[in-house]
């Protein structure tokens, strides 16, 4: 490691320890790292947007390719700034309206396809008479009950209440499994940090 690498890694190691100190309690070191990273990340993000989005979607189309129609989104973007004026604030709603209209319009067909059609396709399976078939049957029953848990406009009592009860148990098993499965990945993240600190210390103290 060169001296500059050693110093930079030292900074990284120091910041790592600052964040870990939060586990004990909130303290000035953590607060320092938190505020530093807030400023640095906001600055990083701004410049990243400037170089990628602003450059690619405003400067290149309008000034280099001559696509004059790209001025319209720019006007809409600038209209967002009218929020500071009481008189003109309603203009910012127009840009928001375009934003929401485009976003919701594009999402409806995509959600219908990916969340409804694809899932339904996967939920209709042939039930055979072996172990796989029993599992498929159980999966289908669990699915139907869990969907009925999300039924809002009917009281959950009687047989329907029983179904939604089975449904919420199915959901809980799903959540328990989801929790348990994630632990391994999180521990791996921690180990990565500990190994980083260990290796840095080894370098520092002549390992």
């Amino acid at each position, binding site marked *: 490691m060169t001296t500059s690498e050693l110093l930079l890694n030292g900074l990284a190691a120091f910041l790592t320890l600052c964040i870990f100190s939060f586990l004990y309690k909130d303290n000035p070191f953590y607060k320092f790292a938190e505020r530093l990273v807030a400023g640095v990340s906001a600055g990083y993000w701004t410049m990243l947007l400037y170089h990628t989005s602003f450059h690619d979607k405003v400067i290149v189309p309008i000034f280099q390719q001559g696509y004059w129609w790209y001025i319209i989104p720019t006007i809409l973007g600038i209209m967002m700034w009218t929020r500071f004026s009481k008189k003109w604030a309603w203009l910012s709603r127009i840009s928001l309206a375009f934003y929401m209209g485009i976003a919701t319009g594009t999402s409806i067909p995509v959600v*219908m396809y990916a969340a409804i059609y694809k899932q339904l396709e996967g*939920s209709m399976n*042939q039930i055979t008479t072996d172990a796989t078939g029993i599992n498929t049957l159980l999966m289908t029953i669990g699915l139907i009950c869990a969907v009925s848990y999300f039924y*809002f406009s009917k009281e959950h009592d009687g047989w329907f209440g029983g179904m939604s009860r089975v449904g919420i148990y199915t959901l809980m098993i799903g*959540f328990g499994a989801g929790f348990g499965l994630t632990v391994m990945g999180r521990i791996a993240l921690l180990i990565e940090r500990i190994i980083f600190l260990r290796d840095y210390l080894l370098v520092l103290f002549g390992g």
Partner: protein
Amino acid sequence: MKLNRKLLWMLCICLLMAFPVNFEANAQEESASDAVDTTGIPPAPPVNVQAMDKPNDNGHGIVITWEPSPDEDRAEDGVIGYSLYRSDEKDGDYTEVRTIAAGMYSIDYEGEVYKYEDQDDREKIGSNPNPDFLEKGKTYYYKIQTTTATGLTSEFSEPVSAAPRGDWFHTGKTSYFIAIIIYFALVLTYIRQAKKGVHLYIRPIGGIEAIDNAIGRATEMGRPILFVLGTGSAADIATIAGYTILARVAKKTAEYQIPVLVPVNEPVVMSVAQETVRAAYAEAGRPDLYDEKNIPYVTAMQFPYVAAVNGIMMREKTATNFYMGLFHAESLLLAETGATTGAIQIAGTDQPAQLPFFIAATDFTLIGEELYAASAYLSKEPLLLGPLKAQDYAKALIIFFVIIGTITLSLGWDFVANIFETSI
């Protein structure tokens, strides 16, 4: 009720009509032909070569189909590949497009049929013209040559031609286009019913009753409330559901005169959140209490944002934390820090992967769709509640199709499952 039943039937019939037909490929049959020695004899070209515009595309694709050369299965030196050539003039220079291996029949057709989609809509690659670009409306000519294992080639097949054109409806998406229209109709129907004043029963949702109590607790303790809208964009539906709940919470806090802190991580979300809270304060008759600095932009990056929000929880000693919106890995980082400060926590998200952590670490969790339902429920506006009924009918339909689809598939019929076949 009559209307509903009619609608359901309409839906079923429309969906049944809409299913596209799906052919299964026939398995390849190995058949060795007569043991005549054909070594050294050139193979025959393929049969029945056809070219047509590629359906459902933007106008830069042609589909070429052909049937195998009679010499594909000959005992000695059979055909192993079909080389496809293209030109923009019938008698002009042809360039090779691709070689397709023998035996790779298309699954779109019955029997032994080859299919190749010649498609490219990039006029230029970098600054160079793209030789594979197909111009819309221009006629292209194709011919095919076969090759044997020892490298013998056949005559070219007769040239065939087609011109690519753009299409105005994607037929492979018909079935879910109809589903969207039907769902739209259902939603509109129940909005109309709600307008007429038909009462709708909505089952109690666990976390909702807790919201008012949690605000009350913060008031008693004289501490602020924290409201996190997640790390989604302003247009994510979960974030939009978050605004509605925020509006309700902000109105209550204005009445009780305690601050609500809403640190956000996206500038557009910040603008909307500020508007929402300002409107809620005005509605509560306390526009003077509104302070824009309580709804700050922190940073757009996920973990720096988490660090800042955790700092706020520790230092401002928030009594109640709401997490409503779209969350990623930050869910547990926030909720667990909140738990150590002893705050009452209510969460809601539509991300299945994050729900386990909210369930484990918060006091109440709105699971998936409950988040949307809660936002409608809290607004108490019949117009917003109406579509919940439409959602419920759609769920009933889903259950219906799962049951019918499973039964018919088990009996060996796939017509119900085919309704949900799409080709994109």
